[in-house]
């Protein structure tokens, strides 16, 4: 059941973007083949083509030497190709069993035979040493378990070639290690794994062969044994990497953001942030690291004012804003770059200038007696477009027409426009290209250099380490450790993220 995959001259265009440009790749059977590249290099598009979700504009796919064309994922599955997407394709309210069999239900006369499915799955789980709780609803499972469900799902659907798209982005380094073991197990039983990532260390650890992509093209292919992080990084970025930002020294300015013993409950009344305290000073970048879903996003929402706090207090520049509205917090100098730029950070159907004005419409500069001063607004917007190099057809096109990187630039431009005192940045570079990433990171650092305080919450451990003066680690709603980036390692942070205490204790400040 081993399968060799050949991709020949695969090309895919999206409006305004050439996502894949004559890509060639050979994936040998029974190996782990890594595809690495920066965000936007075309990895995910290529894999979506291989898994039948997209159709290529040009080029062909060969499975064991035979040309195939996949109109939809089902046809790809029939040829044994299955994909685990970065965003899990699970239905949260359904049981694990129902999720796995969805679309391939064993049935008699249209009625599902769950007992048959259970038997098949038990065998499958035993064979690959991948246990999942079949009767639990998916929403009750931790992320790493959901990922395992996705893998079992792909195997159940008959995958011989398993595509894992950025599988470690939601895992701690330790959980990643468990995943790698599972991958090894799969390969030893004849499966082929395609491993998509931009984290070079883990790629070297798990892969047999590595293809490097940049700007929609394959710029290098080599056995893992011949590769080093350095060579891979150079191929990926196209030049020597100078991503080593130097965070501002060790400032101890006035406290700008003070969070004291804050507790936040979610809609179900569960405490998702527990008794969290910390302070961010002027001129400082405070990083918060943690595996997604450990309370960071609720913490941020509570600080911003989008969800209420249950107990504790929040001060911005010594003003108590615990009960204040978003508007008042913004007036106190808070700005926020949200994780979800498409839905929270912008209004895609509204004109760009309206997007750039958001949050400032009440400023005397922009309105008098409730009337907008449209000429001033227009000057302000076109000034931001020029200053931040936002590529757009005009100020009047809907924001949704901008590319991901430009949209993020627009958000950053707006939030930094009038010199923030406190910037909260949540995964500010997720999913944007390398150029925009450098730009955004530099802007974030400039806020701190200019005397502002920055709270950086990111799932990208390297980003947190590169930009922060201090790092707090969150686990299960609590701060479980504080480290200086120079005195810690990714390893140690990973252990903390997994909830395993190492040395020292957290002092809460």
């Amino acid at each position, binding site marked *: 059941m081993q399968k060799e995959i050949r991709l020949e001259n695969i090309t895919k265009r999206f409006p305004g973007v050439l996502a894949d440009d004559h890509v060639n790749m050979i994936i040998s059977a029974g190996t782990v083949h890594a595809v690495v590249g920066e965000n936007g290099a075309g990895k995910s598009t290529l894999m979506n083509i291989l898994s039948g979700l997209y159709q290529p504009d040009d080029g062909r796919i060969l499975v064991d030497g035979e040309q195939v064309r996949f109109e939809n994922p089902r046809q790809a599955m029939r040829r044994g190709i299955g994909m685990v997407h970065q965003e899990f394709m699970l239905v949260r309210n359904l049981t694990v069993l129902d999720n796995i069999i969805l679309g391939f239900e064993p049935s008699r006369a249209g009625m599902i035979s769950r007992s048959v499915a259970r038997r098949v799955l038990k065998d499958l789980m035993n064979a690959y040493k991948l246990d999942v709780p079949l009767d639990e609803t998916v929403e009750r499972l931790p992320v790493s378990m959901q990922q395992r469900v996705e893998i079992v799902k792909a195997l159940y659907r008959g995958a011989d070639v398993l595509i894992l798209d950025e599988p470690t982005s939601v895992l701690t380094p330790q959980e990643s290690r468990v995943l790698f073991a599972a991958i090894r197990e799969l390969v030893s039983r004849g499966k082929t794994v395609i491993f998509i990532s931009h984290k070079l260390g883990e790629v070297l650890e798990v892969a047999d062969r590595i293809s490097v992509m940049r700007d929609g093209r394959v710029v290098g292919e080599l056995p893992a044994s011949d590769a080093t992080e350095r060579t891979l990084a150079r191929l990926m970025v196209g030049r020597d990497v100078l991503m080593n930002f130097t965070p501002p020294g060790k400032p101890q300015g006035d406290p700008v953001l003070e969070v004291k013993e804050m507790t936040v409950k979610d809609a179900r009344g569960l405490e998702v942030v527990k008794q969290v305290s910390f302070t961010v000073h002027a001129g400082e970048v405070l990083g918060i690291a943690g595996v997604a879903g450990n309370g960071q996003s609720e913490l941020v929402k509570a600080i911003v004012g989008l969800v209420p706090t249950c107990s504790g207090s929040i001060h911005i520049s010594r003003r108590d804003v615990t009960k204040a*509205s978003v508007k008042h917090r913004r007036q106190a100098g808070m700005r926020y770059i949200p994780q979800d730029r498409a839905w*929270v950070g*912008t209004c895609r159907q509204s*004109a760009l200038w309206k997007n750039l004005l958001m949050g400032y419409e009440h400023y005397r500069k922009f309105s008098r007696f409730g009337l907008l001063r449209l000429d001033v607004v227009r000057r302000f917007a076109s000034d931001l477009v020029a200053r931040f190099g936002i590529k757009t057809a005009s100020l009047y096109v809907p924001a949704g027409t901008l590319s991901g990187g430009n949209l993020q630039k627009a958000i950053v431009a707006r939030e930094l426009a009038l010199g923030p005192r406190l910037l909260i940045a949540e995964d500010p570079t997720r999913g944007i290209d390398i150029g925009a990433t450098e730009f955004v990171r530099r802007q974030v650092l400039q806020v701190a250099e200019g005397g502002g305080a920055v709270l950086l919450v990111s799932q990208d451990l390297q980003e947190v380490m590169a930009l922060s003066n201090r790092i707090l680690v969150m686990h299960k709603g609590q701060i479980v450790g504080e480290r200086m980036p120079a005195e810690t390692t990714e390893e140690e942070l990973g252990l903390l993220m997994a909830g395993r205490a190492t040395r020292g204790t957290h002092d809460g400040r």
Partner: protein
Amino acid sequence: MGDRSVGNPRTAKMRNAVLTEAAKYVVALLLGMTIGGVLISFKGEDPVFAYKVLLEGALGGRAAIAQTLRWATPAILAGLATTIGFRAGVFNLGVEGQLYMGAFVAALVGYSVALPGRAHMIAALGAGALAGAAYSLLPAVLWMRYGINEVVNTLMLNYVAYLLTEYVVRVFIMSSSGSVVPLQIVTPEIAESARLPLLFPPYQANVGLFIGVLLAILVYFFFQRTVWGYELDIVGRNPAFAAYGGVSVRRLGMLAFIASGLVGGLAGAVEILGVHHKFAAQFSINLGFDGVLIALLAKNDPLGIIPVGLFWGILRNGAYSMERMTSVSRIVIQVVQALFVLFLTVDAGVIRQMLRRRRALRGKPVQKGATTTHGSLV
């Protein structure tokens, strides 16, 4: 829509888009009228003649035009009421009920209160508008405060409004021995001083038309130029972004909901003070629902409401004259209106795409976009 305030440059491309848009309206209307025509011919009448009668009845002469303007007035107000809500993401389908409450309270003030001159009229108008606003308060609070679906609640409140006004008039105003036939359940006539001045006496067209047009322009200006209008627009399109930016989504949503009810109540008040001069139970069915269709035809543009409302007046008035002059029931026009809207929602671009896909299936590989999701309102 909505973004031309900062001097949008007009290009040939845009002119083309405008023409295509206009063609869509014409084709949709023609298709609706054709099906209406088939129904008319089943009745044994000549559809061309029937439509001619409709047009003459609506536009042939002073009397006809005056009556068309009379019908355009509630259409504009109801359309505006709906649009205010839709623009802010509030699906107020209770304009009908708010209109009834406005009509009833305006009649109450009109006959039971004595005030000098114009003050009486203005008080009655204001009371009607406030009644509409008050009636929208319940679904607004239930939605904004408790997150309870406003569509079902406003629909339910329409029925409650029909029956509640009927009940109050019959039991408390006429004394319960009164008639049981709805249209005979009426309040006394309102005082002369509360009536809206007529535009061309003796015809029913009244200054309510100016109120409607003026309000439409005002609402347009509100959305284009004011801070609140800007914020409301964002709330309607993406509440999460608005909340992120510091807009108080609940408060503004409430405001839009109540403003929508206010205009709905005003529509009812104008009907009573301008035309009927007394409140009759179940006096007008569907003016409120027409508002939904009008809002769609005007693409939620307050200025667009004016021509669409006038067009609605033509259809409504013409339908009455068609009913008088031929054996065709005026309800044919309700079908034509509904079909007009339904055909307009058919997107020619999508049809072309589908044809292309079908053709492609036989030949070259097909392109497909990313995952499609379908919006929902629950």
